[in-house]
């Protein structure tokens, strides 16, 4: 009873704080100074039609680097916790899947992968980018695990792709230091014509690396949660 009253008090307190924070908030009428700079000069400086992408990849590139690191750490910890204890897979049986789902997944998985690649290659023109594309690719592979239990992807291949794309991402950043203004500057190669597929300098290349890295990390998490399912 005391505990419930205590929880109730905490909730009321948080509600009061939040309401007070936003009570005087009447809404913006114009962009702030920094946002105004990003929107007004973004197309000329970065060449990206999607301002959010410009902010994520170049103006605040270190955020992205930190985020990719956190994701890598969490994937590594999940894999470490759930690593396979008994290594003999000989008696591993999988449930029978329906034939229709199997056939449909064989058609759908390549389409989903293509769509994921489309999302991260067009990250500077349309909504999307490395994280979303990586998540879509990982979902496609999860669909493959579910619908076709016989097909397997090794952990080793995923680790190789992840390492290569991580190194590539950092190298692109360092190339920005060497040949242009700073870490992750995308003026390494020319900006190209605004609004076309080959534009915005290095943003598509960086997003390809981010997408492959995020995709392989999320697939790794799903795979380590799926494996050794018959251990008990």
């Amino acid at each position: 009873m005391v505990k419930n009253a205590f929880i109730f008090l905490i909730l009321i307190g948080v509600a009061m704080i939040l309401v007070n924070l936003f009570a005087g908030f009447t809404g913006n009428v114009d962009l702030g100074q920094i946002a105004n700079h990003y929107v007004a000069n973004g197309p000329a400086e970065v060449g990206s039609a999607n301002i959010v992408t410009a902010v994520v990849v170049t103006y605040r590139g270190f955020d992205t680097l930190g985020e990719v690191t956190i994701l890598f750490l969490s994937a590594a910890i999940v894999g470490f916790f759930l690593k396979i204890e008994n290594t003999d897979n000989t008696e591993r049986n999988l449930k029978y899947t329906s034939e229709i789902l199997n056939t449909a997944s064989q058609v759908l998985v390549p389409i989903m992968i293509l769509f994921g690649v489309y999302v991260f290659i067009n990250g500077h023109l349309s909504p999307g980018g490395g994280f979303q594309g990586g998540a879509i690719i990982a979902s496609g592979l999860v669909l493959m695990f579910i619908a076709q239990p016989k097909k397997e992807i090794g952990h080793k291949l995923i680790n190789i792709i992840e390492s290569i794309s991580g190194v590539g991402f950092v190298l692109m950043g360092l190339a920005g230091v060497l040949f242009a203004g700073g870490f992750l500057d995308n003026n390494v190669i020319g900006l190209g014509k605004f609004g076309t597929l080959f534009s915005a300098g290095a943003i598509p290349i960086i997003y390809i690396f981010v997408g492959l890295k995020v995709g392989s990390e999320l697939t790794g998490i799903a795979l380590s949660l799926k494996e050794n399912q018959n251990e008990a």
Partner: protein
Amino acid sequence: MMEKLNIQNIGLTVGILVILVGLWGLLTQKNLIKIVIGFALFDTGTHILMVSIGYIKYRTAPILDEAVDIRNAAKLVVDPIPQALVLTAIVIGLGITALMLSYVLKMYQNKKSLEINNYKDLKW
């Protein structure tokens, strides 16, 4: 009253309410997985709150294609910075959720129980 009824205020209200519901679930539930669900709801509420702060009336998404005039863009689009922050926050939220769930699994392997009342090892 009617002039208060705009999309921004609705978004702020929904965000605050979802945060409170998530916190309530986090504090009152006894099942470990339900606690993680409460945490995920808390996350979603924070994201809704942050995105609604960046919204500006009668403006469109910060993507400059044919529908938006580039020279006049600063007068036509909403604030991109909260959106960029939320973008990273969602992905990190997934990583945290996966981590918490693997802890839950490990705890279950030790004690064969999901009830939080059975975990009293560090209680003082």
